[in-house]
Protein backbone atom coordinates (compact mmCIF):
# COMPACT_ATOMS: atom_id res chain seq x y z
CA UNK A 1 0.00 0.00 0.00
CA UNK A 2 2.75 2.39 0.99
CA UNK A 3 4.66 1.79 -2.23
CA UNK A 4 1.50 2.52 -4.20
CA UNK A 5 1.05 5.84 -2.42
CA UNK A 6 4.71 6.69 -2.86
CA UNK A 7 4.67 5.93 -6.58
CA UNK A 8 1.42 7.87 -6.94
CA UNK A 9 2.75 11.09 -5.44
CA UNK A 10 6.16 10.65 -7.03
CA UNK A 11 4.74 10.37 -10.55
CA UNK A 12 2.35 13.28 -10.12
CA UNK A 13 4.63 15.82 -8.50
CA UNK A 14 8.30 14.86 -8.50
CA UNK A 15 8.62 13.13 -11.87
CA UNK A 16 5.87 15.18 -13.46
CA UNK A 17 5.83 14.33 -17.15
CA UNK A 18 5.74 17.90 -18.37
CA UNK A 19 7.94 19.67 -15.86
CA UNK A 20 10.61 17.06 -15.18
CA UNK A 21 10.87 15.16 -18.47
CA UNK A 22 9.19 17.43 -21.07
CA UNK A 23 6.96 14.67 -22.38
CA UNK A 24 3.92 15.54 -24.44
CA UNK A 25 5.08 19.10 -24.95
CA UNK A 26 3.70 19.40 -28.47
CA UNK A 27 0.09 18.83 -27.57
CA UNK A 28 0.68 20.60 -24.26
CA UNK A 29 1.53 23.77 -26.18
CA UNK A 30 -0.95 23.33 -29.01
CA UNK A 31 -4.10 22.49 -27.05
CA UNK A 32 -3.66 24.73 -24.00
CA UNK A 33 -5.29 27.87 -25.31
CA UNK A 34 -8.63 27.13 -23.62
CA UNK A 35 -9.32 25.40 -20.31
CA UNK A 36 -12.22 23.32 -21.65
CA UNK A 37 -10.25 21.68 -24.47
CA UNK A 38 -7.28 21.24 -22.13
CA UNK A 39 -9.50 19.29 -19.73
CA UNK A 40 -10.69 17.04 -22.57
CA UNK A 41 -7.20 16.23 -23.76
CA UNK A 42 -5.93 15.75 -20.22
CA UNK A 43 -8.71 13.28 -19.44
CA UNK A 44 -7.98 11.37 -22.64
CA UNK A 45 -4.28 11.16 -21.72
CA UNK A 46 -5.07 9.75 -18.26
CA UNK A 47 -7.41 7.23 -19.84
CA UNK A 48 -5.01 6.03 -22.53
CA UNK A 49 -2.02 5.88 -20.17
CA UNK A 50 -4.05 3.81 -17.71
CA UNK A 51 -4.76 1.31 -20.49
CA UNK A 52 -1.45 1.20 -22.38
CA UNK A 53 1.06 1.13 -19.52
CA UNK A 54 -0.27 -2.13 -18.00
CA UNK A 55 -0.63 -3.61 -21.52
CA UNK A 56 2.95 -2.81 -22.35
CA UNK A 57 4.02 -4.06 -18.93
CA UNK A 58 2.56 -7.46 -19.81
CA UNK A 59 4.28 -7.39 -23.20
CA UNK A 60 7.57 -6.49 -21.59
CA UNK A 61 7.26 -9.15 -18.92
CA UNK A 62 6.15 -12.07 -21.08
CA UNK A 63 7.66 -11.28 -24.48
CA UNK A 64 10.46 -8.75 -24.56
CA UNK A 65 12.63 -8.97 -21.44
CA UNK A 66 15.79 -10.99 -21.33
CA UNK A 67 14.56 -14.54 -20.67
CA UNK A 68 10.91 -13.52 -20.81
CA UNK A 69 10.06 -16.29 -23.24
CA UNK A 70 10.94 -18.97 -20.65
CA UNK A 71 7.24 -19.80 -20.26
CA UNK A 72 7.28 -21.26 -23.79
CA UNK A 73 9.80 -23.89 -22.76
CA UNK A 74 13.45 -24.04 -21.75
CA UNK A 75 14.79 -23.73 -25.32
CA UNK A 76 13.35 -20.20 -25.52
CA UNK A 77 14.80 -19.04 -22.21
CA UNK A 78 17.88 -17.37 -23.75
CA UNK A 79 16.06 -14.97 -26.06
CA UNK A 80 16.31 -11.24 -25.41
CA UNK A 81 13.89 -9.36 -27.63
CA UNK A 82 14.11 -6.04 -25.85
CA UNK A 83 15.39 -4.31 -28.99
CA UNK A 84 11.91 -4.79 -30.41
CA UNK A 85 10.25 -2.88 -27.59
CA UNK A 86 9.94 0.46 -29.46
CA UNK A 87 8.07 -1.03 -32.36
CA UNK A 88 5.83 -3.23 -30.21
CA UNK A 89 5.02 -0.47 -27.74
CA UNK A 90 4.06 2.00 -30.43
CA UNK A 91 1.99 -0.65 -32.23
CA UNK A 92 0.18 -1.46 -28.98
CA UNK A 93 -0.46 2.21 -28.34
CA UNK A 94 -1.79 2.83 -31.85
CA UNK A 95 -4.09 -0.19 -31.72
CA UNK A 96 -5.27 0.50 -28.18
CA UNK A 97 -6.11 4.07 -29.11
CA UNK A 98 -8.15 2.85 -32.10
CA UNK A 99 -9.84 0.23 -29.95
CA UNK A 100 -10.64 2.68 -27.18
CA UNK A 101 -12.05 5.06 -29.75
CA UNK A 102 -14.35 2.39 -31.20
CA UNK A 103 -15.50 1.15 -27.79
CA UNK A 104 -16.15 4.62 -26.43
CA UNK A 105 -18.03 5.60 -29.57
CA UNK A 106 -20.23 2.52 -29.24
CA UNK A 107 -21.04 2.64 -25.55
CA UNK A 108 -20.81 6.27 -24.52
CA UNK A 109 -21.50 8.76 -27.29
CA UNK A 110 -21.40 11.69 -24.87
CA UNK A 111 -17.91 10.76 -23.67
CA UNK A 112 -16.94 10.20 -27.29
CA UNK A 113 -18.07 13.68 -28.19
CA UNK A 114 -15.89 15.21 -25.51
CA UNK A 115 -12.84 12.91 -25.86
CA UNK A 116 -13.23 11.70 -29.42
CA UNK A 117 -11.38 14.36 -31.35
CA UNK A 118 -8.38 14.06 -29.05
CA UNK A 119 -7.93 10.32 -29.25
CA UNK A 120 -6.18 10.16 -32.66
CA UNK A 121 -3.89 12.98 -31.51
CA UNK A 122 -2.83 10.89 -28.59
CA UNK A 123 -1.36 7.99 -30.55
CA UNK A 124 1.61 10.18 -31.37
CA UNK A 125 1.80 11.96 -28.04
CA UNK A 126 5.22 11.49 -26.51
CA UNK A 127 3.70 11.28 -23.04
CA UNK A 128 2.05 7.97 -23.88
CA UNK A 129 5.10 6.24 -25.35
CA UNK A 130 7.25 7.92 -22.70
CA UNK A 131 5.06 6.44 -19.98
CA UNK A 132 5.64 2.94 -21.34
CA UNK A 133 9.37 3.47 -21.86
CA UNK A 134 9.88 4.87 -18.35
CA UNK A 135 7.85 1.95 -17.00
CA UNK A 136 10.38 -0.31 -18.73
CA UNK A 137 13.55 1.48 -17.64
CA UNK A 138 12.38 1.95 -14.05
CA UNK A 139 11.65 -1.77 -13.69
CA UNK A 140 8.18 -1.44 -12.20
CA UNK A 141 7.77 -4.77 -10.40
CA UNK A 142 4.10 -5.73 -10.83
CA UNK A 143 1.06 -4.95 -12.92
CA UNK A 144 -0.77 -3.15 -10.11
CA UNK A 145 2.06 -0.68 -9.80
CA UNK A 146 2.21 -0.34 -13.59
CA UNK A 147 -1.48 0.58 -13.64
CA UNK A 148 -0.88 3.02 -10.80
CA UNK A 149 2.07 4.52 -12.67
CA UNK A 150 -0.02 5.00 -15.80
CA UNK A 151 -2.87 6.72 -13.97
CA UNK A 152 -0.73 8.92 -11.76
CA UNK A 153 1.57 10.15 -14.50
CA UNK A 154 -1.55 10.88 -16.52
CA UNK A 155 -2.91 12.93 -13.63
CA UNK A 156 0.40 14.80 -13.44
CA UNK A 157 0.12 15.67 -17.13
CA UNK A 158 -3.53 16.66 -16.67
CA UNK A 159 -2.63 19.05 -13.82
CA UNK A 160 0.13 20.61 -15.90
CA UNK A 161 -2.02 21.29 -18.97
CA UNK A 162 -4.89 22.53 -16.79
CA UNK A 163 -2.60 24.99 -15.02
CA UNK A 164 -1.00 26.35 -18.20
CA UNK A 165 -4.38 26.68 -19.93
CA UNK A 166 -5.74 28.71 -17.02
CA UNK A 167 -2.66 30.93 -17.02
CA UNK A 168 -2.85 31.44 -20.78
CA UNK A 169 -6.51 32.47 -20.54
CA UNK A 170 -5.57 35.10 -17.97
CA UNK A 171 -2.40 36.28 -19.71
CA UNK A 172 -4.38 37.48 -22.69
CA UNK A 173 -5.19 40.58 -20.67
CA UNK A 174 -1.59 41.31 -19.76
CA UNK A 175 0.85 43.49 -21.62
CA UNK A 176 3.42 40.96 -22.82
CA UNK A 177 6.28 42.28 -25.02
CA UNK A 178 5.22 41.67 -28.62
CA UNK A 179 7.97 39.21 -29.66
CA UNK A 180 7.29 37.07 -26.58
CA UNK A 181 3.57 36.84 -27.17
CA UNK A 182 2.13 33.37 -27.59
CA UNK A 183 4.82 30.75 -27.70
CA UNK A 184 7.67 32.56 -26.01
CA UNK A 185 5.87 33.54 -22.85
CA UNK A 186 4.31 30.08 -22.61
CA UNK A 187 7.77 28.52 -22.58
CA UNK A 188 8.99 30.85 -19.89
CA UNK A 189 5.90 30.31 -17.72
CA UNK A 190 6.28 26.56 -18.09
CA UNK A 191 9.90 26.91 -17.03
CA UNK A 192 8.91 28.87 -13.94
CA UNK A 193 6.20 26.33 -13.09
CA UNK A 194 8.80 23.61 -13.52
CA UNK A 195 11.05 25.33 -11.00
CA UNK A 196 8.09 25.42 -8.63
CA UNK A 197 7.51 21.71 -9.11
CA UNK A 198 11.18 21.02 -8.40
CA UNK A 199 10.49 21.97 -4.80
CA UNK A 200 8.44 18.78 -4.43
CA UNK A 201 11.73 16.94 -4.90
CA UNK A 202 12.47 16.77 -1.19
CA UNK A 203 9.02 15.44 -0.33
CA UNK A 204 9.74 11.71 -0.33
CA UNK A 205 13.05 11.45 1.44
CA UNK A 206 12.80 7.68 1.68
CA UNK A 207 13.27 7.37 -2.04
CA UNK A 208 16.34 9.54 -2.23
CA UNK A 209 18.48 7.32 -0.07
CA UNK A 210 19.56 4.63 -2.55
CA UNK A 211 20.97 7.01 -5.19
CA UNK A 212 22.87 8.90 -2.50
CA UNK A 213 24.40 5.69 -1.30
CA UNK A 214 25.26 4.78 -4.84
CA UNK A 215 26.87 8.18 -5.29
CA UNK A 216 28.93 7.90 -2.15
CA UNK A 217 30.09 4.46 -3.17
CA UNK A 218 31.12 5.73 -6.58
CA UNK A 219 32.85 8.63 -4.89
CA UNK A 220 34.58 6.17 -2.61
CA UNK A 221 35.56 4.06 -5.58
CA UNK A 222 36.93 7.12 -7.33
CA UNK A 223 38.89 8.12 -4.25
CA UNK A 224 40.34 4.64 -4.03
CA UNK A 225 41.28 4.81 -7.68
CA UNK A 226 42.94 8.15 -7.12
CA UNK A 227 44.85 6.69 -4.18
CA UNK A 228 45.98 3.80 -6.35
CA UNK A 229 47.09 6.13 -9.10
CA UNK A 230 48.98 8.27 -6.59
CA UNK A 231 50.62 5.17 -5.20
CA UNK A 232 51.62 4.08 -8.67
CA UNK A 233 53.08 7.50 -9.41
CA UNK A 234 54.95 7.49 -6.10
CA UNK A 235 56.22 3.99 -6.77
CA UNK A 236 57.42 5.05 -10.20
CA UNK A 237 59.14 8.09 -8.76
CA UNK A 238 60.74 5.96 -6.12
CA UNK A 239 61.85 3.51 -8.76
CA UNK A 240 63.23 6.33 -10.90
CA UNK A 241 65.12 7.88 -8.01
CA UNK A 242 66.32 4.43 -7.01
CA UNK A 243 67.57 3.79 -10.55
CA UNK A 244 69.25 7.16 -10.60
CA UNK A 245 70.89 6.41 -7.30
CA UNK A 246 72.14 3.12 -8.66
CA UNK A 247 73.37 4.74 -11.86
CA UNK A 248 75.26 7.27 -9.84
Amino acid at each position, binding site marked *: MLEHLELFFKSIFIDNMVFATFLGMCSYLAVSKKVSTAVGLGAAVIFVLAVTVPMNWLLDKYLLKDGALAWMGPEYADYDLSFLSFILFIATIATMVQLVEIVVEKFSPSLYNSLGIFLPLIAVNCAILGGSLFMQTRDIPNIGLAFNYGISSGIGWFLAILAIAAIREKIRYSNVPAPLRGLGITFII*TGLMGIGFQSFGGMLTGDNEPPEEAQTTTVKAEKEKEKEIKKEIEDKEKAVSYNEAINK
Partner: protein
Amino acid sequence: MALLSKKDSKLVLDPLADNNPITIQVLGICSALAITAELKAAVVMALSVLFVLSMGNVAISLLRNIIPSKIRIIVQLVVVAALVIIVDQVLKAFAYELSKTLSVFVGLIITNCIIMGRFEAFALGNGPKKAFLDGIGNALGYGIILVIVGFFRELLGSGTLFGFKVLGDPVTKTGLYSIGYENNGFMIIPPAALIVLGIIIWVQRSKNRALIEEA
Protein backbone atom coordinates in the same frame (compact mmCIF):
# COMPACT_ATOMS: atom_id res chain seq x y z
CA MET B 1 26.36 24.62 -62.16
CA ALA B 2 25.07 24.85 -58.65
CA LEU B 3 24.75 21.62 -56.75
CA LEU B 4 21.14 22.37 -55.88
CA SER B 5 18.60 24.42 -57.74
CA LYS B 6 17.21 27.50 -56.01
CA LYS B 7 14.00 25.73 -55.05
CA ASP B 8 15.88 22.77 -53.60
CA SER B 9 18.23 24.88 -51.54
CA LYS B 10 15.23 26.76 -50.21
CA LEU B 11 13.91 23.41 -48.94
CA VAL B 12 17.07 23.00 -46.89
CA LEU B 13 17.62 26.59 -45.79
CA ASP B 14 14.09 27.67 -44.94
CA PRO B 15 13.64 25.50 -41.85
CA LEU B 16 16.93 26.78 -40.43
CA ALA B 17 15.51 30.14 -39.46
CA ASP B 18 12.25 31.53 -40.79
CA ASN B 19 10.34 28.29 -40.73
CA ASN B 20 12.22 26.61 -37.91
CA PRO B 21 10.42 23.46 -36.72
CA ILE B 22 10.91 24.26 -33.02
CA THR B 23 10.53 27.99 -32.70
CA ILE B 24 7.96 28.61 -35.43
CA GLN B 25 6.09 25.39 -36.12
CA VAL B 26 6.23 24.34 -32.44
CA LEU B 27 6.99 20.73 -33.24
CA GLY B 28 9.29 18.25 -31.57
CA ILE B 29 9.93 19.98 -28.31
CA CYS B 30 9.00 16.85 -26.43
CA SER B 31 12.18 14.84 -26.53
CA ALA B 32 14.44 17.76 -27.26
CA LEU B 33 14.91 19.67 -24.09
CA ALA B 34 15.58 17.06 -21.46
CA ILE B 35 18.91 16.13 -23.02
CA THR B 36 20.36 19.59 -23.64
CA ALA B 37 22.20 19.92 -20.31
CA GLU B 38 25.32 18.75 -22.16
CA LEU B 39 26.35 19.80 -25.63
CA LYS B 40 27.54 16.31 -26.54
CA ALA B 41 24.16 14.71 -25.91
CA ALA B 42 22.47 17.51 -27.86
CA VAL B 43 24.71 16.94 -30.88
CA VAL B 44 24.14 13.18 -30.84
CA MET B 45 20.39 13.71 -30.53
CA ALA B 46 20.45 16.13 -33.47
CA LEU B 47 22.39 13.65 -35.61
CA SER B 48 19.99 10.82 -34.71
CA VAL B 49 17.01 12.92 -35.73
CA LEU B 50 18.84 13.92 -38.93
CA PHE B 51 19.28 10.25 -39.85
CA VAL B 52 15.75 9.20 -38.92
CA LEU B 53 14.02 12.15 -40.56
CA SER B 54 15.92 12.10 -43.87
CA MET B 55 15.75 8.32 -44.29
CA GLY B 56 12.13 8.17 -43.13
CA ASN B 57 11.13 10.95 -45.48
CA VAL B 58 12.69 9.08 -48.40
CA ALA B 59 11.02 5.80 -47.41
CA ILE B 60 7.59 7.37 -47.00
CA SER B 61 7.90 9.31 -50.21
CA LEU B 62 8.81 6.11 -52.10
CA LEU B 63 5.84 4.33 -50.54
CA ARG B 64 3.44 7.23 -50.91
CA ASN B 65 1.47 5.74 -53.80
CA ILE B 66 1.11 2.31 -52.20
CA ILE B 67 0.00 3.25 -48.70
CA PRO B 68 -3.79 3.29 -48.25
CA SER B 69 -4.56 6.60 -46.60
CA LYS B 70 -6.59 5.00 -43.79
CA ILE B 71 -3.68 3.13 -42.29
CA ARG B 72 -0.94 5.61 -43.14
CA ILE B 73 -0.35 6.59 -39.51
CA ILE B 74 0.48 3.00 -38.57
CA VAL B 75 2.76 2.60 -41.60
CA GLN B 76 4.54 5.83 -40.71
CA LEU B 77 4.96 4.72 -37.10
CA VAL B 78 6.44 1.40 -38.20
CA VAL B 79 8.93 3.10 -40.54
CA VAL B 80 10.06 5.51 -37.81
CA ALA B 81 10.21 2.79 -35.18
CA ALA B 82 12.41 0.62 -37.42
CA LEU B 83 14.81 3.52 -38.07
CA VAL B 84 14.91 4.45 -34.39
CA ILE B 85 15.72 0.87 -33.43
CA ILE B 86 18.73 1.07 -35.78
CA VAL B 87 19.88 4.33 -34.17
CA ASP B 88 19.38 2.91 -30.69
CA GLN B 89 21.33 -0.27 -31.40
CA VAL B 90 24.18 1.67 -33.02
CA LEU B 91 24.39 4.01 -30.03
CA LYS B 92 24.36 1.10 -27.60
CA ALA B 93 27.15 -0.58 -29.54
CA PHE B 94 29.48 2.38 -30.11
CA ALA B 95 28.61 4.96 -27.44
CA TYR B 96 27.21 3.05 -24.49
CA GLU B 97 27.74 5.80 -21.89
CA LEU B 98 25.99 8.33 -24.08
CA SER B 99 23.08 6.00 -24.76
CA LYS B 100 22.64 5.75 -20.98
CA THR B 101 22.45 9.56 -20.72
CA LEU B 102 19.93 9.74 -23.55
CA SER B 103 17.98 6.81 -22.00
CA VAL B 104 14.39 6.77 -23.21
CA PHE B 105 14.76 9.90 -25.27
CA VAL B 106 16.18 7.99 -28.23
CA GLY B 107 13.00 5.92 -28.23
CA LEU B 108 10.95 9.05 -28.02
CA ILE B 109 12.24 10.17 -31.43
CA ILE B 110 9.42 7.89 -32.67
CA THR B 111 6.80 10.24 -31.32
CA ASN B 112 8.77 13.37 -32.13
CA CYS B 113 6.14 15.50 -33.79
CA ILE B 114 8.61 16.88 -36.33
CA ILE B 115 8.95 13.48 -37.92
CA MET B 116 5.26 12.66 -38.19
CA GLY B 117 4.60 16.27 -39.16
CA ARG B 118 7.05 16.20 -42.07
CA PHE B 119 5.78 12.79 -43.23
CA GLU B 120 2.23 14.08 -43.31
CA ALA B 121 2.96 17.51 -44.68
CA PHE B 122 5.71 16.82 -47.16
CA ALA B 123 6.79 13.25 -47.83
CA LEU B 124 3.30 12.05 -48.72
CA GLY B 125 3.08 14.57 -51.54
CA ASN B 126 6.59 14.86 -52.98
CA GLY B 127 9.28 12.79 -54.66
CA PRO B 128 12.17 11.13 -52.79
CA LYS B 129 14.84 13.71 -53.64
CA LYS B 130 12.79 16.65 -52.46
CA ALA B 131 11.66 14.71 -49.40
CA PHE B 132 15.29 13.91 -48.54
CA LEU B 133 16.29 17.59 -48.75
CA ASP B 134 13.26 18.60 -46.73
CA GLY B 135 14.20 16.04 -44.08
CA ILE B 136 17.78 17.32 -43.92
CA GLY B 137 16.60 20.92 -43.67
CA ASN B 138 14.10 20.32 -40.89
CA ALA B 139 16.43 18.10 -38.91
CA LEU B 140 19.15 20.76 -39.16
CA GLY B 141 16.72 23.43 -38.02
CA TYR B 142 15.87 21.24 -35.05
CA GLY B 143 19.54 20.47 -34.42
CA ILE B 144 20.55 24.13 -34.45
CA ILE B 145 18.14 24.95 -31.65
CA LEU B 146 19.25 21.93 -29.64
CA VAL B 147 22.89 22.92 -30.03
CA ILE B 148 22.27 26.55 -29.08
CA VAL B 149 20.33 25.54 -25.97
CA GLY B 150 22.93 22.90 -25.11
CA PHE B 151 25.76 25.40 -25.62
CA PHE B 152 24.34 27.94 -23.18
CA ARG B 153 23.24 25.39 -20.61
CA GLU B 154 26.58 23.59 -20.51
CA LEU B 155 28.67 26.78 -20.63
CA LEU B 156 26.75 28.64 -17.92
CA GLY B 157 25.77 25.61 -15.87
CA SER B 158 28.98 23.61 -15.72
CA GLY B 159 31.55 25.94 -17.30
CA THR B 160 32.44 23.30 -19.88
CA LEU B 161 31.87 22.62 -23.57
CA PHE B 162 31.90 18.99 -24.75
CA GLY B 163 33.33 18.26 -21.27
CA PHE B 164 36.37 20.58 -21.71
CA LYS B 165 36.79 23.14 -18.98
CA VAL B 166 36.77 26.28 -21.11
CA LEU B 167 36.26 28.71 -18.24
CA GLY B 168 38.96 27.30 -15.96
CA ASP B 169 38.73 24.92 -13.04
CA PRO B 170 36.13 25.73 -10.35
CA VAL B 171 37.94 23.62 -7.72
CA THR B 172 41.45 24.98 -8.07
CA LYS B 173 40.12 28.48 -8.96
CA THR B 174 41.85 29.06 -12.26
CA GLY B 175 40.68 31.12 -15.24
CA LEU B 176 37.45 33.03 -14.72
CA TYR B 177 36.88 31.38 -11.36
CA SER B 178 39.95 33.17 -9.92
CA ILE B 179 38.08 36.47 -10.12
CA GLY B 180 35.05 35.14 -8.28
CA TYR B 181 32.91 33.70 -11.12
CA GLU B 182 30.55 30.89 -10.11
CA ASN B 183 28.72 28.25 -12.15
CA ASN B 184 24.99 28.82 -12.37
CA GLY B 185 23.48 25.60 -11.03
CA PHE B 186 20.09 26.79 -12.20
CA MET B 187 21.04 26.06 -15.82
CA ILE B 188 21.46 22.35 -15.11
CA ILE B 189 17.88 21.71 -13.98
CA PRO B 190 15.31 20.84 -16.67
CA PRO B 191 13.11 23.97 -16.52
CA ALA B 192 16.07 26.15 -17.50
CA ALA B 193 15.90 24.66 -21.00
CA LEU B 194 12.42 26.08 -21.44
CA ILE B 195 13.50 29.51 -20.32
CA VAL B 196 16.53 29.49 -22.65
CA LEU B 197 14.23 28.45 -25.48
CA GLY B 198 11.79 31.22 -24.59
CA ILE B 199 14.64 33.72 -24.83
CA ILE B 200 15.76 32.32 -28.21
CA ILE B 201 12.21 32.80 -29.50
CA TRP B 202 12.20 36.32 -28.10
CA VAL B 203 15.44 37.22 -29.87
CA GLN B 204 14.35 35.63 -33.14
CA ARG B 205 10.99 37.36 -33.19
CA SER B 206 12.33 40.75 -32.29
CA LYS B 207 14.68 40.47 -35.29
CA ASN B 208 12.01 39.24 -37.65
CA ARG B 209 8.85 41.00 -36.57
CA ALA B 210 6.72 39.25 -39.19
CA LEU B 211 6.78 36.15 -36.97
CA ILE B 212 5.08 37.81 -34.01
CA GLU B 213 1.83 36.05 -33.03
CA GLU B 214 -1.44 37.84 -32.63
CA ALA B 215 -2.36 37.15 -29.04
